């Protein structure tokens, strides 16, 4: 791939020759066709493409939510080929943070408990509680720790989701249409937070069909028909 990234920069996630196909009856549906892609530490990448282009499937494979039909994924130096569901779960828990369009917070569970949800599975809820509170404060939710999702605005809910993605210090944060369910003001806030996190050194991958949103990223990868058709560095970032 033609990136201007320094070759000495650490590769966090590497996809080589990734294909994904589904069997529909006697028909084979090729969703991804030989994707080669490297995400470097500290990058802010936008994956764009129209519906059905395969960008969601690509994100699922990058996020270890789905497994490729062929090719290799290397996450934080580990090869992710033919791993069990439990191993995949552990990798997601330790190395990946997800931010969803629908926020996906657990109702009847406080903001703080939602942020701590990944730690339930890493088994360190107690030791992470102080950190969770600090992250929520940082995101302006210091007064909302005990609030339930239905007591929070959409923007606040998405900030809780961002805090949840950060709790286990993931190697990559995936944001799937993070502003898709927000009004423009809240959407703007969320983008500012993502930019700030990237400035602090976090590796962020946004998946969106919104070309405008993609422009906030430093690098844009266009997917069409299961292939990367464009991979560009945005020199001038704007909102």
């Amino acid at each position, binding site marked *: 791939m033609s990136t201007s990234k320094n070759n000495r920069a650490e590769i966090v996630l590497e996809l080589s020759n990734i294909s994904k196909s589904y069997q529909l009856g006697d028909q084979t549906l090729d969703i991804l066709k030989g994707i080669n892609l490297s995400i470097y530490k500290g990058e802010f990448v936008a994956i764009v493409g129209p519906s059905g282009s395969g960008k969601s499937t690509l994100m*699922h494979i990058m*996020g270890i*939510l789905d497994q490729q039909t062929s090719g290799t994924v290397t996450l934080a130096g580990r090869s992710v080929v033919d791993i069990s569901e439990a191993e995949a*779960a*552990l990798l*997601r*828990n330790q190395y990946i943070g997800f931010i969803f369009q629908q926020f996906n917070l657990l109702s009847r569970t406080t903001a703080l408990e939602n942020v701590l*949800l990944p730690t339930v*599975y890493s088994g360190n809820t107690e030791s992470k509680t102080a950190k969770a509170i600090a992250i929520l404060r940082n995101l302006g939710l210091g007064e909302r720790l005990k609030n339930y999702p239905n007591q929070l605005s959409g923007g606040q809910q998405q900030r809780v989701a961002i805090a949840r993605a950060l709790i286990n210090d993931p190697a990559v944060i995936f944001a799937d249409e993070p502003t898709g369910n927000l009004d423009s003001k809240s959407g703007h806030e969320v983008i500012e937070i993502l930019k700030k996190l990237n400035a602090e050194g976090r590796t962020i991958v946004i998946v969106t069909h919104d070309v405008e949103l993609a422009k906030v990223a430093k690098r844009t990868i266009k997917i069409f028909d299961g292939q990367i058709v464009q991979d560009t560095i945005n020199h001038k970032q704007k909102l």
Partner: protein
Amino acid sequence: MKFSILAKSAITSILRNKTRSFLTTLGVIIGVLSVILLTSIGNGLTVFVEKQFETIGSNLLIISPGEIVSEEGGFNQEAAALSLASSKLSDRDVSALERIGYPIGGVAPVIEGSVDVRSAQGKRKGFSVASTPDYSELRNTKTTKGRFFSQSDVASSRKVVVIGSKIAEKLFAGVNPIGQKVTINRIRFEIIGVAEPKNSGNFGGPDIDSSVYIPYTTASSALGQEKISYILAQVTQKEEMNRAKTKIKEVMLRRLNEEDFSVTDQAEILKTIQNILSTLTVGLAGIAAISLVVGGIGIMNIMLVAVSERTKEIGLRKALGATPNNILIQFLIESAVLSTLGGVFGIILGVLGALAIRSFFPATPAVSSILLAFGVSLLTGIVFGVFPAKKAATLSPIEALRYE
């Protein structure tokens, strides 16, 4: 992953749908309730029967007229009554039995009959028991007031009587009956004692407390009762019961035909009844347990609903690092908590129910059946939770996240 967190989340989601959770557990509640009630009744009956036999006396062999004991050891009360009229048991049989000696201790002939008992205060149906002084020891019949009749009372056929506690209570209310006169079948007797209450008449047992005890010889001289109802023989040691039985049979066969008498062992009858009762209890509890299975199916059903309702939550949890096992355990705990809650409610209701019916039926809730019911309800939740939990555990995280 912490168990306490999972348990907390299970309880949270159960409380989220209070009505639904209650209706779901109803099956288990009813199942456990009926198991507890039925085992309590079975247990109570067993205790009751044991007590009844205790009042009769221990290590006793009963020689009764006729063939009232079947080959299998069953006891026929009606046959006993019929063969009474033609009783061939005689005083010489009693003497023959007394001559056996070890291992047979006391021997006491008994003549029983129905009588009318009258005092100045009224009239009452009673049950006359005519025997020798040994009867008091053999049948464990003590007096609370006065004394039991003596050998000399028997020798002189005195018209003296020891009255049952209920007779004393009804016919001599507020008076000391000792020394008073009582009319039994129009013959006047002097009361020399009051028997200790046995409280056996509750729940349909023979009303021993309405008995009147008179000297053996007085029965024929004053009341015209001559046929021996049965002969009691006490065995000195429990271990000698079989040997004593054989000896008695030997002696009696020399005197009577096989069909003219029977020798029954109290312990054997007790054992037979206990066997019947415990089989009955297990059978009834088994039928009640079927409702537990129905309850379990209800839980499985609602857990399947819960899994599909929470598909998105499952997907999210998986995305955040929950392994299939984590999800499996989460849902298993939920169904186990659900059915155990039902079990606990069922146990509480069952015990309360057993205590409530206690006033008119012997019911004793056994700790063992309570523990068993608890264990079974927990197990029901786990067994019937496996299928829905497996379903949840194998959901694909992407499909689950996409689910609306």
